[in-house]
C-alpha cells in the first residue's frame, strides 16, 4: 500500500491533478446528495424524470423558482443538471465496469494461452477497432432502439477491444516471469495461475487508467443523447438537455444571447465532469510511465 500512498501524494502535490480530484469530489457530493439539493416535487414518481412546468416551447430565464431557468418544454435546468450527475456516474460506472470485465477475461485468455485463442480474439478486436467508435456506437444504438440502455450496450461493445488488447499486452510481459513459471511448475491450474499470479501483477496500471476513462465514456454517451439516440424525453441527462437548447442558440433580433442559459449550463456540467477525470488521467499517466519517471 505504500505505492498507493506515494501515488496519492503525487496527485495532491500536482496542481492539475489536485484540481481534478476536487472537481470529481464535488460531483460525487452532488450525486450523493441530489435528493437534498434538488428534491423531487411531492408525488413525483421517477426522480430521474425532470419535473416540468407547462409545455411552452420557449425557454424561461433563471428566476427564483428555477435558478438556472428552464429548457424548451419547461424542464427545470437546475433539477436536470443535478440529477444528471447521477445519470452520468451510472452510465460511466456501468459501462467501464462491464467493459473491464469483458476486457480482462478476453485479454487474459488471449495473452495467457496465445496460439489460436489469441489469434481469434485479436482478429475480433481488429474488426471492432476498424470502425470509428462513435459511428459504430451510433449504428448499434439506432439498431437496438434509442434508449439509455442501448447507449450503454453500444459503448461497452465499442470500448472492450482496446482494454482487451492492453491487458493482453500486460499479460504477455508478465507471463514469462519466473514466479509464473514456478507456479505452473508446482502444478497450479491455468485459472489459478491467471487469477493469483498473472492478473495481479499485470493489470493494476491498466485498471487505474481504465477507471479514469469514465470521463470519455460520459462524453460519448452525452454525444449519443445529443443526437437523440439516448434517454427518453425529460430524463435527467446532460446530453439531452444540450439537445433541447439546439433550437434556441440564437435569440430574437436585438437580443441574440437571450437564451444563453439553456445551452451553456448543461454543457458546462459535461465539460467539468470530463475535465475532472482527464486531469486525473493525465497525472496518472506520468506517475505510471516508468520512462517518464526516470527522466
Amino acid at each position, binding site marked *: 500500500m505504500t505505492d498507493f500512498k506515494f501515488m496519492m501524494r503525487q496527485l495532491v502535490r500536482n496542481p492539475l491533478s489536485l484540481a481534478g480530484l476536487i472537481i470529481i469530489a464535488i460531483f460525487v457530493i452532488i450525486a450523493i446528495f441530489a435528493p437534498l439539493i434538488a428534491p423531487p416535487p411531492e408525488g413525483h414518481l421517477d426522480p430521474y424524470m425532470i419535473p416540468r412546468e407547462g409545455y411552452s416551447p420557449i425557454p424561461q430565464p433563471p428566476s427564483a423558482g428555477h435558478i438556472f431557468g428552464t429548457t424548451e418544454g419547461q424542464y427545470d435546468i437546475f433539477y436536470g443538471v443535478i440529477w444528471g450527475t447521477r445519470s452520468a456516474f451510472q452510465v460511466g460506472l456501468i459501462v467501464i465496469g462491464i467493459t473491464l470485465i469483458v476486457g480482462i477475461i478476453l485479454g487474459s485468455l488471449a495473452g495467457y494461452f496465445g496460439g489460436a485463442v489469441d489469434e481469434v480474439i485479436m482478429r475480433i478486436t*481488429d*474488426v471492432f477497432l476498424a470502425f470509428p467508435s462513435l459511428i459504430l456506437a451510433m*449504428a448499434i444504438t439506432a*439498431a437496438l432502439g434509442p434508449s439509455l440502455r442501448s447507449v450503454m450496450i453500444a459503448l461497452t461493445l465499442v470500448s472492450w477491444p482496446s482494454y482487451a488488447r492492453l491487458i493482453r499486452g500486460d499479460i504477455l510481459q508478465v507471463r514469462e516471469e519466473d514466479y509464473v513459471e514456478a507456479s505452473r511448475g508446482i502444478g497450479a491450474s491455468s485459472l489459478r495461475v491467471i487469477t493469483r499470479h498473472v492478473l495481479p501483477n499485470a493489470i493494476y496500471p491498466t485498471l487505474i487508467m481504465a477507471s479514469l476513462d469514465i*470521463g470519455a465514456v460520459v462524453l460519448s454517451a452525452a454525444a449519443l443523447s445529443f*443526437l437523440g439516440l439516448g434517454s427518453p424525453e425529460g430524463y435527467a441527462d446532460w446530453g439531452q438537455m444540450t439537445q433541447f437548447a439546439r433550437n434556441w*442558440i440564437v435569440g430574437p433580433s436585438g437580443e441574440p444571447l437571450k437564451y444563453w442559459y439553456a445551452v451553456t449550463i448543461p454543457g458546462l456540467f459535461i465539460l467539468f465532469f470530463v475535465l475532472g477525470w482527464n486531469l486525473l488521467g493525465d497525472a496518472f499517466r506520468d506517475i505510471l510511465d516508468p520512462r517518464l519517471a526516470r527522466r
Partner: protein
Amino acid sequence: MELRAYIVRRLLLLIPVLFGISLLIFGITMLFSPIERASLYVSDPKQLRDLASIIQTYGLDQPFWSQYGTWLGQVFQGNLGWSKVVSMPVWNAIWNFLPATLELAIFAAPVIIFSGIFLGTKAAAQKDKPLDHATRVGAIIGWSLPNFWLGLILLMVFYGALSGLLPPGRLSIGMDAVVNSAEFARYTHINTLDAILNWRWDVFLDALRHLILPVITLSVTNVAFIMRLMRSSMLESLGKGYVLTARAKGLDEKTVVNKHARRNALIPVITISGYLFAALAGGAVITETIFNYKGIGWWAWQSASRLDIPSVLGFALFSAVLFVLVNLIVDILYTRVDPRVRLGGGIQ
C-alpha cells in the same frame, strides 16, 4: 522483403478484417425480425398484407449464412439498400454527400495537423516552462470539451451575437442558386474547388465563410491529440545521440530543434495524421449535424434519428472500409518515409 510482397501480404491480411466488418454489420441487421426487415421493401401501406410473400421472395427466413451470402452478393454489386431519408439508394446517398465531407476534411486536417505539430514542437523545446504547461492544460481542456456543445456556443457567438457573420450550412441561399445554375460547372461538388475552377471568388469566399466554424470545432477537439503525440515524440528525439552531436557541433538551438530533432519526431505523427484524415473523411457526424453541414455525417444523423437502419449500417460499413483502406495506404507510404520500418514485421 520486397515492397510488392509487403503490399500483397497486407492486402491478404485485410480480408479477414473486411470479412469481420461485413459480418458485424450483417449481424446487426439480423437483430430485426424477418417481418421488420420485410417491411423495408414496402412503400404502399396496402402491400403490408403481402409481407409473408416478401419474406418468401427475398428469403428473409432462411438460415443466417444463406442470408449473409445473398446480402454480401448485393453489397458487392453496390446495393446497400434504400435510404428513406433522402429517397435514393444508400450507395447514391454516400456519393452524393461525400464531397461535402471531403471538403471539410481537406480544410480541417491541415489546420489540425500543422498546429498540432507546431504547438507540440514548441512545448517539447520548452519542456516544463510556462508554454509547455499552457499547452498541456489546453490539451486537457480540448479533449474534455463536448464538441456538440462547443459548436453550439460558437454558433451562438459568431452567428447570433455577431449578426450572421459565420452562418451554418454549406452556402448562403444566393450562392446556392449560383452553384446550382446552368453556367456553374460542378466538376467535383467540392464547393471551394469548383468555385476556383469557375473563377467565382464570391462563391469561394461564401463557401469558406461556412467552413470556418466547423473547422474550428473539429480542430479544438483534435489538435490536442496530435500536439501531445508530437511533444512526446520530440522529447524522445531530443534525447537521442544525433541531437547531442548536432549541439556539440555548435549548431544553434533552432536548427537543432527544427532540422535534426523534428524530422525524426514527425514519423509517428504522420501515421496518426493519416488516421485522422480517414476519420474525418468517414464523416464528422456531430460537427456536420450541429452546423447543418450536409455531408455524410449529417445524412447519417438524419438516418439514425429516424431509425432508417439500412442507411445507418450502409454508412457504418462505408466508413469502416474507408478507414481500413486509408490506414493501409498510410502504412505503405510509411515504408517510404521511414527506412527503419522492416517490411517483414513491425517497427523496430
